[in-house]
């Protein structure tokens, strides 16, 4: 019995030994074929990865790491409370920050500007409940201001659905947003300009119609006053004749103002016809003298003028040139006190001729120099207007000068006087 047992034991031990040997042999053969991944060290119970397998593992790991680091989108791994565990290279390119600056901090709340912090907290809360898709939240870049980023997550969960890790992907949409904003602003500007143009046209059309309507009754006032003056309705007393004179003067004055308005409206609507010709500068000045002498004499102002080379001409519309210069001299007379002086002369340059109209009036403040050419502007506005007129003369004059390829400018000193300069080209413009 004992013998049998011991024989059986021995046989069993031999079988086990053979079994172990064959297993060892099989392990050696598998190792030879390169089919093993790991050996567990019996002394420390630590698995030792075999070099080839290890190499393959680390190669595939390196490949994934490279893939993630090249990804232009932000790739972040965060703990359930939102603290970053890993961020890829995009944190450098997109936000100008080093990964170690961000690791351990709440990604969204750490880099979110104060005014968007509410949104950042909302995102952190949302992400804990379920994945988000396309949540827009800006982050503060270290060197490039605010970067708008659209976030999508693909979180890791445990088998029973608890959040294990937040995996967030962020794509920079700053440029897209900027382009959208620009497009929007451009559209708004276009709409605003179209509105302004429409409003301006409405105003101009109104002026054109109104000034025409105002002129009609004025013409009948003139006609009937003339009838009375001529005595066709019976003899007049001296007082009646004087009153009629006042009516006629006021009528003429009002007509002048309305004509200004009409001219301005015509200029604005582009209904002005210019008749260009070579016109003599001396002739222009002579006509000006004749027209302004009565005004000057009435106010006891000294009027001086220079003469130019008789052959000098400008390429312009004769009538409009007269209109501009008469307007300048009338203004000078209007703003110069009795015993003041007005000097008109001309100056020749290579391409153009300058007509200067200088006065010894009160002058124009520096800050008003630009606005006097705007329609309806007089230097002093208030309840008491010392100087009559609607403030259109200079606006019309400069528009006309520019239409003739010239310009109208002014220099002035308070208490000394003003000097207006009209420049007109000597030759027909190539343009």
């Amino acid at each position, binding site marked *: 019995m004992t013998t049998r047992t011991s024989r059986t034991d021995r046989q069993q031990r031999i079988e086990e030994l053979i079994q172990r040997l064959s297993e060892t042999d099989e392990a050696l053969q598998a190792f030879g074929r390169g089919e093993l991944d*790991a050996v*567990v060290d019996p002394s420390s119970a630590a698995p030792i990865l075999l070099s080839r397998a290890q190499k393959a593992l680390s190669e595939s790991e390196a490949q994934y790491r490279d893939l993630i680091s090249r990804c232009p989108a932000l790739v972040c791994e965060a703990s359930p409370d939102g603290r970053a565990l890993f961020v890829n290279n995009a944190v450098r390119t997109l936000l100008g920050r080093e990964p170690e600056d961000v690791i351990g901090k709440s990604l969204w709340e750490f880099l979110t500007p104060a005014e968007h912090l509410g949104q950042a907290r909302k995102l952190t809360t949302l992400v804990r409940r379920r994945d988000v898709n396309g949540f827009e939240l800006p982050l503060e870049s270290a060197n490039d201001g605010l970067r708008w980023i659209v976030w999508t997550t693909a979180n890791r969960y445990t088998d029973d659905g608890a959040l294990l890790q937040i995996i967030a992907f962020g794509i920079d949409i700053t440029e897209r947003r900027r382009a959208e904003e620009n497009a929007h602003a451009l559209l708004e500007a276009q709409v605003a300009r179209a509105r302004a143009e429409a409003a301006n046209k409405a105003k101009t059309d109104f002026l054109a119609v109104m000034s025409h309507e105002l002129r009609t009754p004025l013409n009948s006032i003139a006609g009937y006053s003339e009838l009375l003056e001529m005595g066709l309705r019976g003899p007049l007393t001296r007082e009646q004749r004087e009153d009629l004179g006042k009516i006629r003067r006021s009528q003429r004055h009002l007509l002048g103002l309305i004509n200004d308005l009409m001219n301005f409206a015509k200029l604005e609507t582009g209904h002005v016809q210019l008749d260009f010709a070579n016109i003599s500068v001396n002739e222009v000045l002579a006509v000006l003298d004749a027209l302004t002498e009565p005004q000057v004499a009435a106010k006891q102002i000294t009027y001086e003028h220079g003469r130019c080379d008789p052959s000098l001409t400008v390429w312009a519309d004769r009538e409009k040139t007269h209109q501009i210069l008469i307007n300048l001299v009338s203004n000078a007379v209007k703003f110069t006190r009795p015993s003041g002086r007005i000097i008109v002369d001309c100056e020749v340059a290579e391409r153009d001729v300058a007509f200067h109209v200088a006065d010894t009036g009160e002058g124009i403040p520096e800050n008003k120099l630009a606005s006097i050419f705007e329609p309806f502007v007089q230097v002093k506005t208030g309840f008491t207007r010392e100087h009559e007129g609607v403030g259109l003369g200079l606006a019309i004059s400069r528009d006309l000068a520019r239409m003739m390829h010239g310009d109208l400018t002014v220099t002035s000193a308070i208490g000394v006087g003003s000097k207006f300069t009209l420049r007109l080209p000597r030759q027909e413009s190539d343009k």
Partner: protein
Amino acid sequence: MSRLVLRLYVAGDGPNSAAARANLKRLLAHCEPSTYSIEIVDCLREPIRTLQDGVLVTPTLIRLEPKPGRTIVGTLSDSKQVVEALGIDGPATMELR
């Protein structure tokens, strides 16, 4: 025929371990699922258990049932050997045809 009980020892996602898993899955594809069970043990996670089970290298497949136990080391790419060791035939026949 008694139920087939297998245990495969692997080292994480190592290439040979992955190959062994894939080969085993392929060989068992045509077996009725109720006739066998497989447990996978990762020696990187459970090195002590691996050692206690007498397994020193991975991948290693052990047939626990039916007795006597059998051990196959490697990627299980030699279908014929594995089929003989496991005592299954279905897919092996197709495989060897």
